[in-house]
């Protein structure tokens, strides 16, 4: 039996509407990429230092994706290998559809590690307590009806070692930080960084950043990205 087209079309539209009423899952992950899980190789750093992290704990809160708040743990350790998948923070069930305007807050970053160059080695253990809200993130999360979408908070550890806060393509450097170990005990401490000038680093037009500790805190506010390289609008929460 042939069904007239005028009856088929409304039926198709009705099915489409049913589909848009369905639900899907958003899975939120955090990923430190190879730079955190494996380290930053010397060839990436212009002055030849290689950096490895033994701990890279990120405290995340206020995650909102697809208009829904996602319950996440207080902190996530990102040095644990994840085979490129990142670490799941939580899931939420939302209506199927395409979503933008995701946001989250990185409340604190705790990093421990070692930088090495030839016979030199410098340890560091820093708590970067600079709550930063990331909003209007540049990504689209497509939630399929009955399926799962992933929203990844990507943490770019290499930003800690950028030599500019404003350059389009900053260089990675460690020597300036290594030189801050003024007591030469092999550990670069917050106290040492707090009394060391940033030297040739460029803090940008606003200025107001004169010490290396202030520099690291400022750079820590730039670590958060989404789905790899997606950027967000950032604002300080402290």
């Amino acid at each position, binding site marked *: 039996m042939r069904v007239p087209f005028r009856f088929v079309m409304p039926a198709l539209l009705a099915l489409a509407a049913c589909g848009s009423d369905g639900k899907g899952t958003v899975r939120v992950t955090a990923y430190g990429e190879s730079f955190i899980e494996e380290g930053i190789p010397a060839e990436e750093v212009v002055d030849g230092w290689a950096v490895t992290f033994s701990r890279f704990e990120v405290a995340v809160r206020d995650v909102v994706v697809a208009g829904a708040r996602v319950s996440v743990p207080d902190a996530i350790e990102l040095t644990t290998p994840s085979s490129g998948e990142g670490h799941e923070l939580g899931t939420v069930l939302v209506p199927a559809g395409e979503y933008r305007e995701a946001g989250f807050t990185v409340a604190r970053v705790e990093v421990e590690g070692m930088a090495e160059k030839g016979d030199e080695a410098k340890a560091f253990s820093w708590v970067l307590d600079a709550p930063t809200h990331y909003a209007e993130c540049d990504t689209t999360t497509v939630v399929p009806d009955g399926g799962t979408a992933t929203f990844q908070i990507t943490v770019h550890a290499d930003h800690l070692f950028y030599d500019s806060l404003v350059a389009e393509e900053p260089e990675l450097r460690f020597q300036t930080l290594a030189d801050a170990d003024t007591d030469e005990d092999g550990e670069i401490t917050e106290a040492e960084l707090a009394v060391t*000038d940033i030297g040739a680093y*460029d803090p940008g037009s*606003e200025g107001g950043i004169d010490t290396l500790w202030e520099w690291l805190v400022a750079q820590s506010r730039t670590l958060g990205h989404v789905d790899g390289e997606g950027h967000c609008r950032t604002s300080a929460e402290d």
Partner: protein
Amino acid sequence: MYGRSTALAISVALLSACGRPEEAPRVELPVVVDASGVTTVTTDLGYTVELVEARMVIRDLVFSVAGEVHATGLWSTIADFLLPTAVAHPGHFQGGEVTGELRGRFLLDFVPGNGDVELGTATLLVGAYESVNFVFERAEDGDGLDADDPLLGHTALLRGHASKDENSIAFTAVIDSPEGRELTGAPFSLEVTEASRQRLGIRFLTEDPFEGDTVFDGIDFGALDADGDGELTLDPAPTEPSLRDAMNRFRRTFQTHDHFDVRVFE
């Protein structure tokens, strides 16, 4: 240098031809070099500093309004493409949208009493302006300099005297900004309407009018003049540690929006 301006004009013309009501009114205002910001200052270390020469090369002045551009439809799309969003810098302006421009390379000569040299005519959409951005450049042959001009290859050249107690030191400072280094958020406060006819004066400010700090703060001219001959040269990349530290600090301060603004001549 006319690429984006021309594109903007063509886009506006196309919109106009289509009879779209969204076209934003715009005006053209002359931009001049204004030396009134180069004043004798006293630094945090007690030096009285007077400049006799202050020249620099920049490009692409762009002007930002507060808040968002409320254009719609096709105009909004074109404006987004042509006029990128400005970077917000709390303390000087709270974000905004670039809706004015004067493109090109410019040699700024801030010699007091040298007259107001006109750089060109800026095109601005009407709106409440808050700030100006530009890019630091390095002087090239085409910038109208003599072949032996010490500014060639560099961003800025400042020459003057720093005096403290009974001692005076003649100094020359040559600054190299990183390639493509943009200065954002310099103050420019003006409600631009279709009736606006003001001149705009770009200024280098030896003293920050908001906080009172000077561009020479932290520079101990006397200590840096190690040989005590009363002359000091700050090169872009000195090897001597104390000079290097001084240049790093000086360049950092020079490149902040605290030391530039645009004055409006009514």
